[in-house]
């Protein structure tokens, strides 16, 4: 049992730290859920790619460094510690790419992987529908076969698609066989958001920014080349991304370690604030998350796999994130309400707080995660509820 890094791993972390110190923008970028902010984040993706730090764990052929899992976690820690911008390319890099590597055709891999590493191709995730949230298999948007043109015709509506207002392409599930059982007969499609027949309508979020959008499909043609995996196999293909979203790949501990560091600084700067216990508890939980990640990494290195454990991560990080930000607001006292340049950190505490509130909802609500933990990990009998995953 040890946490020792090899000299090579330490050198890798040092190299990342040095590069980030030089390149991370001095002032935080505007929110990526605004048009300007989105564009600025896209440029940051290009900068990252130029430095070779966009996708460290990918094969070199696609712009990566072929780094191992340990190096990847080290990089993420350095990334957040440096205060670097949130990754606007994350839907593509973290959610779609693992599936492309596993299920994509060589042609799809060529076309899409490299382009998503430098910000030139940004993806939106189009799963949810007005009638299909937690019960994702209830989706009703359809794909109808078009033999003549060699493809499919999409119809229906998606909703809550993050940054679809500015993204380039989307990926999502459509019902391609209306006669098949719920989880069967779904097909995974890739499509351009400016295709003929697509209308994207931005929706303002709690913080006022248009962070997500509805997508309407009216006879949208998608060629066979943009079907990911086999037709009818979409559910199985999609579920391999669900684990990614909840577990390691999107929620590296660096994010919460960095937030906790900011919380500690905030508490230290306000000696009158009586939140020491809450700050200490946040620190303990961020440490726990960091250490559990190393345990998971070790399990994977040993040849094990991470399945339903991603649900435990999800519950843990999302609740930690809310608690960190609630504590920060209590420390700020009456200032907590202020947003904008007059507020501490330009109002980032307030913005991050609002965003933290979405954590227990997106990527599968925490109630659904608890069902998964109870049934898949503890082996409790299935009830009539929570069959999403």
């Amino acid at each position, binding site marked *: *049992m*040890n946490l020792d890094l090899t000299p090579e791993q330490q050198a890798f972390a040092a190299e990342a730290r040095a590069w980030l110190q030089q390149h991370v923008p001095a002032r935080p970028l505007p929110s990526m859920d605004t048009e300007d902010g989105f564009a600025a984040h896209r440029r940051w993706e290009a900068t990252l790619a130029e430095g070779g730090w966009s996708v460290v764990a990918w094969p070199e052929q696609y712009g990566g460094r072929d780094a191992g899992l340990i190096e990847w976690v080290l990089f993420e820690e350095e990334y957040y510690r440096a205060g670097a911008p949130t990754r606007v390319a994350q839907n593509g890099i973290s959610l779609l790419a693992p599936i492309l590597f596993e299920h994509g055709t060589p042609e799809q891999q060529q076309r899409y992987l490299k382009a998503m590493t430098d910000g030139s191709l940004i993806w939106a995730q189009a799963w949810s529908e007005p009638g299909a949230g937690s019960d994702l298999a209830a989706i009703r948007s359809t794909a109808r076969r078009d033999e003549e043109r060699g493809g499919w015709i999409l119809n229906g509506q998606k909703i809550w698609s993050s940054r679809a207002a500015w993204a380039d392409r989307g990926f999502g599930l459509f019902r391609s066989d209306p006669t098949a059982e719920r989880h069967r007969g779904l097909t995974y499609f890739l499509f351009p958001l400016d295709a003929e027949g697509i209308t994207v309508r931005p929706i303002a979020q709690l913080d006022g920014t248009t962070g997500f959008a509805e997508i309407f499909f009216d006879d949208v043609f998608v060629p066979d080349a943009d079907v990911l995996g086999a037709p009818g196999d979409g559910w199985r293909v999609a579920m391999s991304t669900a684990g990614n979203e909840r577990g390691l790949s999107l929620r590296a501990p660096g994010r919460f370690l960095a937030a906790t560091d900011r919380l500690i600084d905030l508490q230290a700067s306000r000696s009158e604030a009586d939140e020491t216990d809450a700050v200490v508890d946040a*620190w303990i939980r961020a440490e726990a998350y960091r250490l559990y990640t190393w*345990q998971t990494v070790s399990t994977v290195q040993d040849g094990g796999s991470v399945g339903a454990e991603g649900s435990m991560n999800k*519950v843990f990080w999302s609740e930690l994130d809310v608690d960190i930000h609630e504590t920060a607001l209590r420390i700020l006292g009456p200032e907590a309400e202020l947003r904008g340049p007059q507020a501490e950190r330009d109002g980032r505490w307030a913005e991050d707080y609002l965003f933290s509130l979405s954590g227990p909802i997106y990527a599968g609500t925490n109630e659904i995660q608890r069902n998964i933990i*109870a049934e898949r990990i503890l082996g409790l009998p299935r*009830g009539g509820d929570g069959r999403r995953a």
Partner: protein
Amino acid sequence: MRFLPTDEQVAFAEAIDDIVEAHGGSEIAQRWAADDDEAGRALWAQFAELGLTGLRVPEEAGGFGGSASDLAVVFERLGYHGVPGPYIESIAFLPALVDADTRERLVAGAIATVAVDPLAPAALDAHAAELLFQVRSCALHPAAVREPAGSLAPTRRLALLDAQGEARALEARELALAADEAALAAAAMLIGAGERLLDEAVSYAKVREQFGRPVGEFQALKHQLADVRVALTFARPLVWNAAIALGMDEGERAVSAAKIAASDAAALAARVALQVHGAIGYTSEHSLRIWLGLAHALPAVWGTRAFHRARIARSILPGRAA
């Protein structure tokens, strides 16, 4: 980097499981609570043969020469089985503080206990111990029982001691390190007790039927049990980390984090396990009380949550150094 128990540690843990089961499993603790020490003593003797009683004594001194992470792995199993007896005292706390002769006796399987002011002011299982000590003002005193005292945990029989005879002066640093080792062992035991409470609750929820179906189908229970799974899963790596960091720069705060997280996880496991069992869990015949007792009692000794939080605050918040 490999942040998992080694194959040897896993094998050692399995050996402990087998030995405890062979001696009667949870019956050992139930009998201990009823003043019948025979099975508990036989188990202790068997552990001595395995090398457990000399776990943290260096090989040169006749011990097993185990690491602090060996200790963490072992004490999780002791907690899981609710093994009764002053193991934390004899194996984790005392060996580094006593003289060479006494240490030899400990390795050979002598049962010892200690009252430590103010971390563990009542001595555990003094009636069963042949060596009794009291720590005050940075000195280790031989001691004798003044009067027995009750505990929240039925399997922990406590006593207040009186110091007598010649004391052995201790260095503040060695005392602090021994106390941290005891806190680490307690944290590991709490994880074990929490895991057992969860196992018991999950098994019961699968078989107990109400309204024509197993109660484990009801989401209100499922979600509580899932929260216990999450709490224990994220507390354990803190205990492992504390074992690695023990005695190093950031060892103190690592131990404190482990003790708090393990206490909270075990306390949650206790509350949920009792709720899942309903009234049957509230009886003293039911073995659930063994682990409920540990989860209630251990968070209070070897440093309360307040003590450990204050230590972390001093470490992470600049300007808080006492």
